[in-house]
């Protein structure tokens, strides 16, 4: 468990839910067609484990004054509009991210490695390893 984690799965998070505001219906249709072709191709290549658009609604749960509260979900530049879960190398994940048809309309793509063990547990193992080697 002390070996560095490597990943062959990456999540692309598409950030920005306001990018289509200034597009005409034709332009929007054009981007969406390219997007679907892009996802179809990646799926046929066996690279897609899951992929979905997220609806512009929902809730955010936070902890306030000792109880979880749910608030409305607001559209923003930072909001996530959808995701791809890909089985690819890091290099490939970056190349695919650059192909996103909405990039030039202001969408940003977060490319995040996926691991079996979360970062916090890694910290626990590291501390145990350091402790036991003293």
């Amino acid at each position, binding site marked *: 468990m002390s070996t560095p*984690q490597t*990943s062959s*799965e990456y*999540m692309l*998070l598409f*950030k920005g839910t306001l990018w289509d505001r200034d597009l005409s219906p034709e332009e929007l249709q054009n981007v969406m067609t390219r997007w*679907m072709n892009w*996802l179809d191709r990646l*799926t046929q290549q066996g690279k*897609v*484990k*899951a*992929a*979905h*658009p*997220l*609806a512009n*609604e*929902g*809730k*955010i*749960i*936070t*902890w306030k004054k000792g109880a*979880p509260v*749910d608030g409305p*979900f607001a559209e923003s530049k*930072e909001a*996530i509009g959808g*995701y791809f*879960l890909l089985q690819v190398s890091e290099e490939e994940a*970056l190349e695919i*991210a*650059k192909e*996103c048809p909405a*990039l*030039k*309309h*202001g*969408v*940003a*793509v*977060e*490319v*995040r*490695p*996926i*691991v*079996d*063990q*979360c*970062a*916090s*547990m890694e*910290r*626990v193992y590291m*501390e*145990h390893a350091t402790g036991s080697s003293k």
Partner: protein
Amino acid sequence: MSAEIAGSPFMLLFRGTHWDSGLSAEEIQQIMSRWTAWFDRLTNEGKAKLGQPLTNDGKIVSGKKGFAVIDGPFTESKEAVAGYILLRVDDLDEATKIAKECPGLDYGMSVEVRPISGEIGRGPD
């Protein structure tokens, strides 16, 4: 392919990668045990379809004119996504109820509950 899949798909996005700062290794271990038990239960109930942590590194690709690739500052951030769970449950109320059980909430994490839209998605069903 014609079989009806019960329920609706939702994604829980766990935000906050700073929640464990200041906690001891034992405390983190305890929270993670609760987290694993929670996820196992949801999986056994057929409600969690997939769920994974994201590492605190990665990159952001953006650019209206050519590409900008920057290393993401995903550590110690309240907003950064730390992981996700794909749910299939009855409705938004049930997804919200599950989100409120997240063991990271007590420590400053927030959980975004997002309906998955359309039929154009892929997997994991």
